[in-house]
């Protein structure tokens, strides 16, 4: 794979990593009241930078753009190397959006404000770093550095079982990433012994042309790290625990950004590095993907805890991304990437909605809700749109990605396509059920509930500002997906080039 680079005139990417870190350092010294405005302004700046990059990106051919490279540890051939292609760029933009939304939402946080915003700012830097690094050591540094703030966020600001959930999250992901690390080191050593190149750059490792048996081994080592992060069935058990216990903004980031890292890893590393092994493992990935989609959709159906339902639906959607990716054709790949973006909007919005309900009603249990729509119509509308987008209603974002992923899957394997397609119905089922039970079902209403809910206020300004951008993006992506597909098409082709040629 020969890649062209467009060097950045101005280090925009480095800036968007460093600004949150600087802001976090500033927060240490300033007064507590300033924490919220500083964080919101910081994330707004980062969002503007990434939005600028999104429009300045030239998608007509595959080039790594806004590329920067500086030598870092010459003894090991490690450089600081960042840049974006369309996949990285959309993910970075999604990250910036999700963080902006979370920061705005978090203005109602009361407990240990400074530490809260410092954790989130460092998390933002690490998340952006993961998506833009092309040097494997830096990739790994960001990938792991993200664990520390997330661990604290779940553990400090979470709900009753937070410590258990935080520890489970940490140990699960740490386990996976260490295997990822030895996989990468193995490739690095192989490269050194066989090609005498001392480099951890993605662009050197991609040209390694490993023998088949080594490809299998390294694929498995890396896949373990990614699969836990996605999470794929059967490694998903940390996710419901973490989601349920995390504070609202933590859940938003977890769903909108962290889950994408796993699928990003598969698309970015596994396919171009191990084309033969990827083909070899298609049946396994399809099986795991279909199990994830169906099993977790069933699990979602039987839950009564709002966040748990959304968490399971996330695993299910990630199953679509997995099968789309391993369909190994253009439609599947485009579908996978679009689903990742769309899931970023919908899951973030749904978790915000859950947080909103909890703030008002102080319960996540469906049976404690019911008939809320009458009392907060604005919220009900926005929640409805998000739920429909998540379920895949045409015209909204969820439909585009899932449709493309299914088309790709049908081309690769009809059986998988049929099974995944059927589960869409289940998906629509639990989403509607969730919405129906919480917002409409009037049989759950008691006079006492009505009395309480008459006092509830509809969305305030802060909540609207954080919620509306997501809903708008669902429409944008749903109604005019062509722009997005054009944006990612060259990248999908480049990623698949080793597998399907061209």
């Amino acid at each position, binding site marked *: 794979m020969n890649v062209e680079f467009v060097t950045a005139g101005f280090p925009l990417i480095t800036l968007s990593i460093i600004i949150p870190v600087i802001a976090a350092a500033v927060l240490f010294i300033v007064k507590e009241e300033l924490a919220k405005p500083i964080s919101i302004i910081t994330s707004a700046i980062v969002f503007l930078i990434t939005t600028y990059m999104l429009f300045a990106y030239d998608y007509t051919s595959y080039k790594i753009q806004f590329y920067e490279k500086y030598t870092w540890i010459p003894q090991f051939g490690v450089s600081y190397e960042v840049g974006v292609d369309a996949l990285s760029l959309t993910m970075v933009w999604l990250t910036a959006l999700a963080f902006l939304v979370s920061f705005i939402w978090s203005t109602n946080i009361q407990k240990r404000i400074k530490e809260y915003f410092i954790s989130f700012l460092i998390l933002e830097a690490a998340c952006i770093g993961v998506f833009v690094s092309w040097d494997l050591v830096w990739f790994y540094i960001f990938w*792991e550095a993200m664990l520390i703030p997330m661990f604290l966020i779940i553990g400090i600001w979470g709900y009753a079982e937070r410590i258990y959930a935080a520890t489970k999250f940490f140990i699960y992901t740490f386990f996976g990433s260490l*295997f990822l690390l030895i996989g990468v080191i193995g490739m690095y050593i192989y490269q050194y012994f066989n090609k005498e190149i001392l480099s951890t750059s993605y662009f050197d490792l991609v040209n390694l042309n490993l023998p088949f048996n080594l490809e299998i081994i390294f694929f498995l080592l890396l896949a373990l790290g990614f699969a836990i992060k996605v999470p794929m069935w059967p490694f998903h058990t940390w996710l419901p625990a973490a989601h349920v216990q995390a504070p609202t903004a933590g859940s938003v980031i977890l769903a909108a950004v962290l889950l994408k890292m796993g699928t990003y890893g598969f698309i970015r590393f596994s396919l171009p590095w191990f084309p033969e092994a990827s083909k070899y493992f298609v049946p396994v990935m399809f099986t795991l993907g279909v199990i994830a989609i169906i099993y977790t959709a069933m699990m979602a159906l039987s839950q009564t805890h709002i966040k748990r339902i959304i968490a399971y639906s996330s695993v299910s959607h990630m199953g679509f991304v997995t099968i789309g990716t391993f369909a190994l054709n253009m439609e599947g790949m485009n579908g996978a990437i679009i689903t990742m973006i769309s899931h970023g909007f919908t899951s973030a919005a749904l978790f915000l909605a859950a947080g909103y309900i909890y703030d008002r009603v102080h319960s996540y249990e469906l049976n404690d809700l019911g008939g809320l729509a009458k009392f907060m119509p604005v919220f009900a509308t926005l929640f409805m749109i998000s739920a429909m987008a998540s379920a895949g209603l045409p015209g909204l974002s969820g439909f585009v990605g899932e449709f493309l992923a299914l088309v790709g899957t049908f081309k690769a394997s009809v059986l998988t396509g049929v099974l995944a397609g059927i589960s869409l119905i289940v998906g629509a089922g639990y989403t509607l059920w969730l919405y129906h039970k919480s917002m409409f079902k009037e049989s759950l209403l008691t006079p006492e509930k009505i009395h309480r809910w008459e006092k509830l206020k509809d969305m305030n300004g802060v909540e609207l500002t954080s919620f509306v951008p997501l809903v708008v993006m669902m429409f944008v992506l749903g109604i005019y997906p062509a722009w997005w597909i054009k944006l990612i098409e060259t990248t999908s082709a480049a990623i698949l080039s080793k597998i399907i040629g061209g």
Partner: protein
Amino acid sequence: MSILEQIVSGIGLPNFWVLLPEIIVLLTAFILLVLELFIKNRVVISGITIGGLLLAAASISLIREGDVTFYGLYVVDMFSLVFKLFLILTTIFVVINLKPYLDSKKTYYGEYYYIILFALIGMMIMVSAPNLVTFYMGLELAAVSIYILAGTFRKDYRSKEGAFKYLIIGGMGTAIISYAIALIYGRTGSFDFYTIASSINSNSLDIGMIGALILLIVGLGLKAAAVPFHFWTPDAYEGAPTPITAFMAVAAKIATFAVILRVMVEAFPFISSEWSFAWALLAAASMIIGNIIALRQENVKRMLAYSSIAHTGYILAALAAPTGMGFTALIFYSLIYIFMGIGGFIVLSALEKNHNWTNHINDFKGLARRSPMMALFMLIFMFSMLGIPPTVGFMGKLGVFLALIGMDLWWLAVVLVIMSIISAGYYLRVVIYMYMYEPVSKARLNYSVSEMFTVAFMATFVLILGIYPTIFWGLSSTLSSVLLAGIGR
């Protein structure tokens, strides 16, 4: 011509210039030994100690080129100079924190200062030894001084118990090493590393030589607290005054790793495949036992003692890959362990000054509320020991992984991975208790300036080196090539 002049003209005067750091430290120690009888002002005593150490550190920069002096008994090269510099710096950080700690315990012994310096000289001799006799002398000087240091709380039962255990087991180690030296001398007729190296290769291994090698490795493993020779460590570390624990766990260990590396590489370079396997076994055992026992500790100081055993395992694992990369990784990890180890133990020492603080894990509840900065530094040290980027602990483990996988030692790499994950259990627990529980006591925590400075300095370096390890990597690989260049000289 007098007799003295005849001797000098016959064999030449040894080059004392390159011994400047040792001489300064020794003079300071003797001055303190005498002064301590008359001056009871602790500030003066510790001031003189620190002044002497700073002078010694500065004098290292005066030594422009290395030399083998004392008629081939003492080598001053870059390897030994760099380790001496770091040992002196470590000692400075221990000494400045000694006074506040002892003040709070209301037990003051002036002996500390000069005994620490004697131990330091022992370590400096260790890292400069080109010869089994010099090596043995340095090892013993350091060891005997540390036995005394560990037991200076003579009214405290645990301190005495720890020191006594250490004395008995350490004495056994000394005996084992001297057997090994005797056997090596019997086989090769020399104490000198290079002569030994040139007369031993894998074809000339016989039962005596193998026995000697095993005894030597056992003895050195005992000094480095490798499993299964670690039984003295938890008790000695827990019983000793906490700054002294830091000294034992960091300075003494670093010196031991340096000397292990030097002996193995310079005296036995041609049978590296034999000894590397022995070290691999010790490393695996240390990682497994250290981490698993640490998991069950309720006392954080004791937990850190076991964690230091686990770190011995990680560091020795690099020796299982006897390549330039392996030696580089070992040197790098040893040097960075200074920052994590001193940091972690000094945090404990600072906290321990406060009333009712027992180092029990429950005492850490809500530390982040009571003392946010201290909790943040402890968090950095814990994540660094766990090996999470962007702290330097990750870079250390990365080097070991590179070395191990470069030699196809996958099994040891996997042991390292699994044990790292297990270690998350106890390091995270400290973080959880500090950050995720409400404080049980609201009493103010007081720290001295020196403690705050030490801890902040170490934490800053842990982060800086985690982001920019380049200089340290360069240094470590230079040192390892200095060692390798010496082979077969």
